[in-house]
């Protein structure tokens, strides 16, 4: 039943104008307002309403108030009794605003060397042709497809989410988040890692000197580079023996292995540093090719290559790997 429904509803604009809010179509005239029926049906209007009607009858133009500036200029007695606001500035216009919401005073004479720090104008609403098709819409519709960060629950980088959850102990997520922030700040302020030959960093890694300015990239380079491709499962073989079987990992699983190794190496550091500093140290060591995580990775890969004959070829089986009595490849 659930599968039958589409995973996300279409975001294309609805063409039915009657469904849009605050909009009444010209084709369908609005229903006539129903008259109140009851005791108050045909009562006289209120005093003020009646007065307005009378004024309309007497003179077609409503009586305008006398401009206060003129009175103030002519009559000194009025000026004496005038409220403070008017007294301070004898003109009709105040120089300051009494509005509840403060407005930005217009700045005059911005120096020429401050060209970069000019005030940004209010966001102009682009006359998008698409938006104009929807009557009453002020802003255009968002561009589709929506970016990956637009989802409320998945707005941050998946890598950072995983690192945070890995570091978290006892459900203290805020603590873990601040630790990750500290790690990133540490990576920013450290000197750039020195490239070392023979370090199998991920292909496509940017120049190492640019990494400190992008700490998330830094962390990702380290974690994705040391993450193993496979894990070794020890499955029961024939005759009571165990067969090492390499098993491929998904991205998240691979990153988890890398994180375990990096944090294990960080915990062995002798200098009594804070966790964030230790972890950041280890991330730098990974990128520079000095970390012990590399040895663990090569160990796994070596064993996987040695036992490549045991690889389960038919991955379509639905039986959980732990339930398999012996590797199918051996058969």
């Amino acid at each position, binding site marked *: 039943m659930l599968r039958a429904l589409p995973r996300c509803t279409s975001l294309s604009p609805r063409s039915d104008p009657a469904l849009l809010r605050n909009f009444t179509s010209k084709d369908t005239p609005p229903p006539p307002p129903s008259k109140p029926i009851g005791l108050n049906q045909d009562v006289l209007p209120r005093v003020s309403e009646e007065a307005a009607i009378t004024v309309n009858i007497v003179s077609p133009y409503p009586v305008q108030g006398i401009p206060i500036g003129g009175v103030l200029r002519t009559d000194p007695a009025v000026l004496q009794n005038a409220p403070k606001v008017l007294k301070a500035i004898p003109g009709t216009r105040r120089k300051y605003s009494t509005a509840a919401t403060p407005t930005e005073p217009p700045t005059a004479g911005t120096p020429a060397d401050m060209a970069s*720090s000019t005030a940004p104008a209010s966001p102009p609403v682009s006359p998008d042709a698409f938006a104009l098709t929807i009557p009453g819409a002020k802003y255009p519709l968002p561009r589709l497809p929506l970016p990956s960060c637009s989802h409320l629950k998945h707005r941050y980088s998946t890598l950072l989410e995983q690192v945070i959850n890995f570091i978290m102990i006892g459900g203290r997520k805020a603590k873990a*988040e601040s630790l990750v922030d500290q790690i990133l700040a540490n990576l920013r302020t450290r000197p750039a890692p020195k490239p070392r030959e023979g370090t199998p960093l991920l292909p496509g890694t940017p120049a190492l000197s640019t990494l400190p300015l992008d700490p998330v990239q830094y962390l990702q380079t380290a974690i994705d580079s040391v993450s193993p491709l496979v894990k070794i499962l020890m499955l029961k073989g024939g005759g009571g023996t165990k067969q090492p079987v390499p098993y491929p990992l998904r991205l998240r699983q691979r990153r988890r292995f890398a994180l375990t190794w990096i944090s294990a190496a960080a915990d062995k550091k002798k200098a009594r540093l804070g966790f964030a500093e230790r972890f950041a140290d280890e991330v730098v060591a990974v990128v520079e090719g000095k970390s012990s995580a590399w040895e663990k990775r090569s160990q796994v890969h070596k064993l996987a290559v040695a036992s490549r004959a045991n690889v389960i070829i038919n991955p379509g089986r639905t039986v959980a790997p732990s339930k398999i009595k012996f590797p199918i490849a051996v058969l």
Partner: protein
Amino acid sequence: MVPPILWRCLRMPHIIHPLKPRLCLHNFTTTPPFSAKPLKPKGPPTSSKMNPGKQRMQSNKVHVKKKPILVQKPAYEVGQRKELRKRIVLSNTNAIPVVLPTMTADLIGNEDAAGAMFALPSGEGDTIVDRLRALEAFQTKQHWPFFYRPCTLFRRETVEVGRLLERVVKWEAAGEDGRVNERAILHGYYGCGRSILLLQAMTWALQKEWIVIAIPNAQDLVIGHTEYEFEGSSHLWLQKASTTDLLNRVLKANRKALKGMKLSQSYRLGRIDEVRKGDSMERVLETAVLDPLLAWDAFNVLLGELGLPGSPPALFTLDNLNQISIPSKYRDQAFNAIHSHDLALPNAFLAYLSGKRGFHKGVILAATSSKCSRTLALDAALECREVDPYERLDPRIGPSIEGAQIIRVDSLSKEEAKGLMDYYNQSGIMKDPVDIATFNEKYAVSAGNPRDLFGTCLRMRQ
């Protein structure tokens, strides 16, 4: 063979050094041979197979190997952790250097510059940054280590602070005794940049060769971590160690200006030491720094000399004013908490802030802090509101800041925020381009608060 030196020894008179004790050498010993250690008794026979009793004993015995007790090295040396905590890094070579104009003294009170970034002067042979560092004007959580060099934003409030300095320089609003003292308190929300304003004022004052006396964190004076003693004549509690530290900072930062100050009369420091008329103030402080017993007297000499005509202008600052508006952690003989205003250093500062004492030409600046327990009396005094007679507020707090101008430090205006975000972008720290959509988003999220704006621009998550 007998060496010839022996004959010489006999012939020559024996020279004994007056201080060194003569070594007594004896050719024989009077120790009886009995006191020597006895020889070890002979061990058991090597073949133990013939001794069944011992075998059983060995088998029943549970061998518990005692671990040798290792004397663990302390994790940190004494003072190492504090040093790490207070270490201030002012540059980051990873960041891209941004070409900015220098914050020179002719910008004081310049309204046109508001909204632009300025670099602190750090050219060849310019020691302003080092002197600011000596005054502890930089703080650890002000995000200095992310940028190539220390730069600050010139704000509307900076103009106001500059006006104070300007008025003193131009000798405006002098009192009847010919003194100019501008007193102000910087007050605002958390992270709105009060301490940075103090830093900017100090930068200008140091460039103009004023004498800058700065108490970087008033909390250090009241948490009861240093020694204190009662002085009978003034009924104040002196903190000589803290005063020595303060004088040390003042000396490091203002050495050139202090060298030019000559004493107008002779003073007595402590019981014995005396400084004569015409000595430089630098000498006085150098003497006092070495001996904490002289520190308080020397500090008073410095303040007194700054009040005389002909002395250089002075800037006296104190950060975290709230901390000296709550009871201190010190106790008197009857174990009552000492009021913070009874401590000598806070008392001296507040005397200047409230106008009881004054420099000849000087600016007194205090900044409040948002990291402090509630200070209702100070809040009431800062808001200048009538106090409810049933409210139990500390009656000494209000008069202590009376007459000081209160400068409201507000959140950033849009121009200022734009200038700051452009700087982040040019430093290579903030990756997003500063277009209108990004700017409005970050400005709205941070509500123009500088600290929050930094967080919004730099943190991967908010």
